[in-house]
């Protein structure tokens, strides 16, 4: 449906019963706003993790956050379907708890990123297996829940926006206050320690933050893994690895990529829509490949 500029403006400002108000205010606006924030949170989460883990393949899914969130999501949906309204909180809690478990496993006089990522992969496999088991044993119900695996912003409303907003604000705070500390961390633990960073504590803080960011995003949109992995790389290819620029670029790119792709997915079919995660893969991947081929990599 398309509206004139005037209709749109009045839809945002005036709370009447018009179709424009209904659609623009209640459907489109929360969707665009929360979708963008989902993108920003995922991109920021991936950006932080790739730095902290010193591995360009790190992303929320590599440290098990995604699988923790989706596992709790599954359990909620399949075993206690009447508690569906707890899903968002469940996903965030799942992400957070998984992170703590993995941290505990990998910890031993400081945490080694290698161990942490590998533990994350192992835990993810276990959760994945649980999900598979659930799927085999509750095949009917789970048909409901498979949607969780393909991220989509359909039906996202103001309540989702208010759920993700605080996390997005945290992200902005990080953007403003942490780049220099992050840059210093990239010089290696010894150098960073010598410059006054409590590396162990800072790393823990970052991991927790990024798991919360990812958990919040997943709870709103389901899995859009690709954003957390690829957006930080695109940002890096575009503006280099100084976090002063890398954080804001990732956030902005994550925001716009999700909003643009979601809009495409909404209008591309005559009826119905294509999930944002699918469109992102089709749009983002070739763009990324183009950059990768034509720019120097780190």
């Amino acid at each position: 449906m398309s509206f004139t500029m005037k209709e749109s403006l009045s839809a945002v400002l005036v709370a009447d019963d018009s179709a424009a108000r209904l659609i623009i205010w209640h459907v489109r606006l929360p969707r665009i706003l929360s979708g963008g924030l989902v993108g920003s949170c995922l991109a920021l989460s991936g950006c932080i993790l790739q730095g902290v883990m010193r591995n360009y393949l790190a992303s929320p899914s590599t440290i098990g956050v995604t699988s923790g969130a989706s596992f709790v999501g599954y359990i909620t949906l399949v075993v206690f379907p009447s508690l569906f309204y707890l899903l968002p909180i469940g996903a965030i809690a799942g992400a957070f708890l998984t992170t703590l478990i993995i941290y505990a496993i990998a910890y031993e006089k400081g945490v080694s990123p290698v161990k942490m990522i590998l533990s994350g992969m192992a835990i993810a496999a276990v959760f994945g297996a649980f999900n598979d088991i659930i799927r085999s044993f509750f095949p009917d119900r789970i048909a409901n829940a498979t949607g969780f695996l393909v991220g989509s912003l359909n039906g996202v409303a103001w309540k989702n926006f208010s759920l993700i907003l605080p996390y997005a604000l945290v992200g902005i705070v990080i953007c403003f206050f942490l780049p220099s500390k992050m840059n210093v961390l990239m010089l290696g633990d010894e150098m960073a320690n010598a410059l006054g960073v409590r590396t162990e504590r800072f790393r823990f803080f970052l991991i927790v933050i990024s798991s919360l960011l990812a958990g919040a995003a997943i709870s709103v949109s389901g899995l859009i893994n690709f954003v957390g992995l690829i957006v930080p790389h695109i940002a890096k290819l575009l503006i280099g690895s100084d976090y002063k620029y890398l954080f804001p670029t990732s956030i902005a790119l994550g925001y716009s990529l999700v909003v643009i792709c979601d809009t495409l997915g909404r209008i591309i079919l005559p009826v119905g829509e294509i999930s944002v995660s699918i469109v992102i893969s089709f749009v983002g991947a070739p763009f990324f490949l183009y950059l990768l081929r034509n720019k120097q990599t780190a």
Partner: protein
Amino acid sequence: MYFGFENVSISYGKKKIVQDVTIDFPKGKTTTIIGANGCGKTSLLKTISRAVHPETGKVVFNNRPIGHYKPKALAKKIAYLPQIHESPSDISVRTLISYGRYPYRKFGKGLSEQDHEIIDKTICLTGLDHLQDRTLNNLSGGERQRAWIAMTICQEPEILILDEPITYLDIGYQLEVMELIRTLGAQLNITIIMVLHDINLAARYSHHILSIKDKQIYACGEPRHVITEDKLLDIFNIHSQIHEDHRNTCPFIIPEKK
């Protein structure tokens, strides 16, 4: 004690590296640690950056164990350049140097006017003017090493710790770095502690030389007293001709095989 080790022992697993070492580094002086490969020089310095935890004993600064200081407060006083350091490849020399100002940054503030001045001064001091906008991965080994040294100097420390700082440098820059260190030491009264393998430069630019052998401090004192034929034989298992460098008023050696 101003700054030093108090009864420090270090082991890796069951392997003892140094045992019960106590050193008080004299304030405002340059002390060079020498010793054979693997004798524990780097390990000792790593206890200062807390990359290695001493088994017993502690590192003391101004009579308090360094663990009692806030990390940033300590970082304003003590700068440390490890022997081997990783670098993000695509940052510019200037950016790397600016990281030395990290401990001075206020939460949420960028670099101040003053920070930029200090960075400029350091770049000038270390002869990196023409390289300051190049990224690290495009530099030769020696150029990169100078950028790192510049970063630590930029920290304006009271104590500067350098582990083999002139590795990879050509002789011109070796001399320049040593001169720089001497200048910093003399003008700003900075206490400098470094590890060097070049005995001649050590003898010429240090107030004190400290040698480690068999898990212990083997000798410690003015260059003239440590750089002797006997002692070098003990420490490095080499003979040597010891001459006098009259111009620089220090001994210099020509090492000879056994």
